[in-house]
């Protein structure tokens, strides 16, 4: 190999080390340096060294649209098609933000309808989700073969749920692979808000304090306070993404109301059932929320959802 070419290769290697997406960021390098320094001076407390070592990957996982729909179904609520985002709205969504939000919204809608065996609605909504996915550049997330598979299994709910799960996985992995994690977060926020919208509209109007204590669905709505922390962490991880920042600003308005809800949970004790091999995490929770706070919450969710589907 001639010398000029060898030098060129060496220069390219250096360039690669600098620009590679796999290279560690400044803060990670600093963490490593701190870790190395700790190793040289410690020799006493190995546990401390272990604690200092940076975690390579941090995942913050929001409930997926399928999970949101399952929570709704398991709370024992009924199906109401009027609550879904109308199919003729698809032409409205032309920006990245609106397509991402409504990919999440339509995916929650189709998950919800599939759990109640509304097969034609499920097919219609997967087509709506397909349009959103295509707009975002994910041509293969939901293709014609996906829809054909769905149509061929209209009476098999497990297969339908598996198809929905696969389409969510394809789109979420596509965004991760293409370093568009912020868009993935917007999709999940859209799906999550849709779940909250459906849930709050399935609860009877003006629930009393007693309803608030006894209604399973209201408890699940209050539980969503826990997801807010994840949203904020995801925003930190994807800092300076204008689309996500705009969406999170709306969510922060919701957070102010959720802050008024008090949730106390005792320490979980794992108890394993040796026959089923399932471990129950035994604990107790108390939720403190007044009818007035619930009303504010429902109104704010309505406002945000209306904004997202407009």
């Amino acid at each position, binding site marked *: 190999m001639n010398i000029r*070419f060898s030098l060129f*290769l060496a220069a390219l*290697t250096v360039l*690669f080390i600098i620009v*590679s*997406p*796999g290279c560690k960021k400044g803060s990670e390098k600093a963490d490593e340096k701190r870790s190395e320094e700790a190793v040289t001076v410690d020799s006493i407390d190995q546990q401390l060294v272990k604690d200092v*070592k940076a*975690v*390579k*990957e*941090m*995942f*913050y*996982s929001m*409930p*997926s649209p399928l*999970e949101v729909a*399952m*929570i709704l*179904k*398991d709370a*024992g609520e*009924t*199906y109401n098609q009027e609550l879904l985002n109308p199919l003729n709205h698809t032409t409205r969504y032309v920006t990245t933000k609106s397509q991402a939000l409504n990919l999440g919204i339509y995916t929650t809608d189709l998950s919800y309808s599939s*759990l*109640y065996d509304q097969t034609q609605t499920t097919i219609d909504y997967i087509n709506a989700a397909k349009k959103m996915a295509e707009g975002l550049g994910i041509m293969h997330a939901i293709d014609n073969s996906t829809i054909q598979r769905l149509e061929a299994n209209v009476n098999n709910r497990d297969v339908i*749920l598996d198809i*929905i*799960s*696969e*389409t*969510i*996985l394809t789109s*979420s*992995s596509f965004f*991760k*692979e293409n370093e568009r994690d912020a868009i993935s977060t917007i999709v*999940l926020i859209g799906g999550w808000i849709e779940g909250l919208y459906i849930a709050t509209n399935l609860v009877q109007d003006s629930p009393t304090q007693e309803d608030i204590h006894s209604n399973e669905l209201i*408890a*699940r709505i209050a*539980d969503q306070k*826990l*997801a807010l922390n*994840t949203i904020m962490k995801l925003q930190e991880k994807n800092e300076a993404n204008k689309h996500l920042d705009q969406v999170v600003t709306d969510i922060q308005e919701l957070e102010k109301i959720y802050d008024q809800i008090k949730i106390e*949970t*005792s*320490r*979980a004790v*794992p108890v394993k059932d040796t026959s*089923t*091999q*399932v*471990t*129950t*995490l*035994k*604990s*107790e*929770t108390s939720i403190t929320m007044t009818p007035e706070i619930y009303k504010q919450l429902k109104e704010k969710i309505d406002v945000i959802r209306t904004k997202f589907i407009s």
Partner: protein
Amino acid sequence: MNKLSSHALVLLTLFMIMPLLGQGQCKQFAKQVCKNELTPYIHNGNYNAAILTEGETAEMYKTFYSRQNYRLYICESSAMPRIHFQVLDINRNVLYDNKKNGYKMKWDFMPESSQQLIISLEVEDGENDSDGDPISGCVAIMIGIKQNGNDSSP
């Protein structure tokens, strides 16, 4: 463009896309291998996978909801060293440790109260590959959910 520059361009392109190829393989691995291991639970659809090297750690923060049935499955590509994982509550109290359960990679559980849990994993140090380099591979954290018995379809 002369011959030297075109060679260089090809090499540079290859270098640049190599990390993405790794991600692509990880995605296929999660879809084709890991997902099936959740049956009869249904994968929630969220993609949480990364290329890890022995000695490296990862953590996932996730809210698990009251009275939902979950299967946690830590999936790793073959030839990787063992993975030690723990499930912790938000105060980092240990709720499950796979080391105390024969390094099982699946855990089925049902929380009575909704709560945020931390899944903390470490790829244990193993024997290096034939070149003496640490072994790297794909590790996916898969969450499966199962419908409860109630079926109030209209």
